[in-house]
């Protein structure tokens, strides 16, 4: 059992900063966060606009949209590992039938496709939640605004651009902010689907921290990685708060 009792000052941090693996994990973390959150935002916005239409069974569709968020990440990992399977995966079969690939691709087992594959699974998992949040905000747009736009004979693109988007902006900002933090700390999916591999092709900071702490039993190093991540996230939060201040108190 690890016996964490001796005080060693900043040694854990110095050791990390001298380690090349740390920088690789940091770089992949940034790729992971940016690509996950931006795609979730775009797809979530589309989903919210779809669900904002008037149609029968809207409540049900909204309810179903929350199911991926409530699904254990292990199950998400399992479903996507099965969809992406290199021998019997349905995604390979479909792509082959469409003529997009010639041979089955072992998506999770090769370095060049592992990270994009887990990003895809995460986008799927996070998008519907994003959509539900944005939908709530869309539905709080006062009816008068639409009526005024109709009188001015605005088309639906203008309504989106001049009414919906400005109204959504505060929700987009705060939801993206929370998503960034959540995605940066989220290790389950990658840990289960690839374990950070093959090699270190999908290693992000929280997985690196976990492996340091529990696989190599270097608890101090694992904690140091996590602390650095908190500091980095804090910078993002402070930047966000400054942005809010700059924009004044309009939201």
């Amino acid at each position, binding site marked *: 059992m690890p016996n964490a009792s001796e005080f060693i000052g900043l040694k854990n941090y110095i050791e990390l900063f001298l380690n090349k693996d740390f920088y690789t994990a940091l770089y992949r973390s940034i790729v992971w966060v940016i690509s996950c959150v931006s795609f979730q935002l775009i797809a979530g916005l589309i989903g919210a606009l779809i669900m904002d*239409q008037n149609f029968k069974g809207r409540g049900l569709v909204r309810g179903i949209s*929350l199911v991926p968020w409530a699904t254990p990440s292990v199950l998400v990992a399992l479903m996507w*590992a*099965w969809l992406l399977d290199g021998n*019997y995966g349905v995604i390979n079969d479909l792509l082959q039938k469409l003529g997009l690939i010639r041979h089955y691709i072992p998506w999770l087992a090769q370095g060049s496709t592992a990270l994009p594959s887990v990003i895809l699974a995460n986008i799927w998992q996070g998008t519907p939640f994003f959509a539900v949040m944005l939908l709530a*905000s869309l539905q709080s747009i006062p009816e008068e605004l639409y009526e005024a736009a109709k009188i001015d004979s605005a088309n639906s693109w203008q309504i989106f651009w001049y009414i919906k988007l400005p109204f959504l902006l505060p929700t987009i900002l705060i939801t993206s902010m929370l998503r960034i933090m959540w995605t940066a700390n989220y290790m389950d999916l990658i840990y289960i689907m690839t374990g950070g591999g093959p090699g270190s092709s999908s290693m992000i900071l929280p997985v690196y921290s976990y492996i340091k702490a529990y696989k190599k039993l270097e608890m101090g190093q694992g904690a140091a990685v996590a602390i650095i991540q908190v500091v980095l996230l804090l910078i993002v939060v402070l930047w966000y708060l400054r942005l809010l201040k700059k924009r004044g108190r309009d939201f």
Partner: protein
Amino acid sequence: MNKTKITSRLKYLVIFGWLFFIIAPYLWMFITSLKPPAEIYTKTINYWPNNPSIESYLSLLKTTPFIRYFLNSLLVAVGTTVIALIASVTAAFVFSRLPFRGSRGLLSGMLVSQMVPAILLAIPLFLIFNKLSFVNSIVKLILAHSTYAIPFATWTMTGFINEIPRSIDEAAAIDGASPLQIFWHVLLPLIIPGVVGVATYIFIFSWKEFLYALTLTSRTVDRTLPIGLHTFMGEYTIRWDLLTSAGVITVIPVILIFVLGQKYLIAGLTAGSTKG
């Protein structure tokens, strides 16, 4: 066909596309779970089983400790929900109605736990629980999950209670009600929808939680569903019949919870965001 009819058809097509995007992975898991093992590993993929059967489910229940995992998860999720609700509703009452020096700061501090990576909290929890080896693993997990659930729930519940006008408790106080009576007979009934929403949230959080469960349980009998599924993925890499049927059973409680608590959950989740 006139123009409005086409747009209406197009609309339903788009909605169907959105639903399909969400449901497809579940659907494929369900279809696979109905295939007899021999049919799963074929060169050409069948999009519907030739001979649908529940064979996978039977062998899952017979040959694996799946039921044990399921019950453990249920126990942990219910335990966490009960503890976190009791703690957070009472704390929220104090934060909202009986503020004390430093209570505002304490309340803001509750949000910090949302920012910290779970791994950072898991390491000290692991080291502390190691010293408490006599404590049952299920109890450890309930406590660990509560450390996350209570701050979040307190924050949300305080918001709900703050929305109830103070004039209501003042009226009750004039009638001679004690703070406890005001809490129990006046405020609590008014915030029930919020409580249901928060309870749903906590249950789901605990039901799907992975990292604490991974670090705090070591014996097979203590595993929760997520950890059970994770070991399955290691042990039965080539048994997709067991994996998919286990997956289907795991998702059932999630759907049940949604049928029951959906309305309140969405109201609770989105309350904060729209006020931004």
